[in-house]
């Protein structure tokens, strides 16, 4: 399925540039996710990746003109907060055992 961009002209160029910036940010976060020295670094990188996916869905709603994508962004925002809380408890539980 080919999604045609509904925005053109100045707004279309701005949306292309925004997507380029988001891809650079995603690559940087993926580098930190792979190379992070501690578990907390990886969790921070994963948190940023999920936030960037929400941003990308909001931008993609604008590119495609399909309004349903913003509902996906709302759902992903809810899920990513739960994932962050769960990972924080995981950090607390796994590495705290050796110190106490």
């Amino acid at each position, binding site marked *: 399925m080919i999604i045609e961009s509904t925005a053109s002209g100045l*707004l279309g160029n701005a949306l292309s540039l925004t*997507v380029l910036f988001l891809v650079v940010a995603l690559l940087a976060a993926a580098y930190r996710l792979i190379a992070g020295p501690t578990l907390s670094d990886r969790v921070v990188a994963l*948190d940023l990746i999920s*936030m*960037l996916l929400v941003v990308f869905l909001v931008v993609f709603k604008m590119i495609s003109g399909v309004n349903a994508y913003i509902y996906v962004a709302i759902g992903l925002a809810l899920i990513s907060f739960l994932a962050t809380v769960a990972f*924080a408890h995981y950090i607390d539980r796994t590495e705290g055992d050796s110190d106490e």
Partner: protein
Amino acid sequence: MSDAIAAFLFVAGGFFCMVAGIGLIRLNDVFARMHAATKAGTLGLGLICIAVMVKAESLLHVAEALFVFLFMIASAPVGSHLIGRASWRTRVPMDPNTQIDPDCSMFRRNRAR
């Protein structure tokens, strides 16, 4: 006119998201990286949601973009605080230049000079 405003806000939001990614690579320890990811990322998301609100067709679309924005600025600091507290408790190593001042003896010392 609204096209130009929305285009500027989109590019600014994408730029701040890229700053968040670069900060995640270049900063030195977990706490500084968390600062970059949370603050710059939330600012980028806010600018992009405002851009979508500028170009929205009806009041319902404005409300949906506003909901994404409000939910992320409510949940991102909470999640970041939880990660920071867990990192502090498990003694994640800090940058060697970090100075800890428990009784605030150096507070406002530099500014009075």
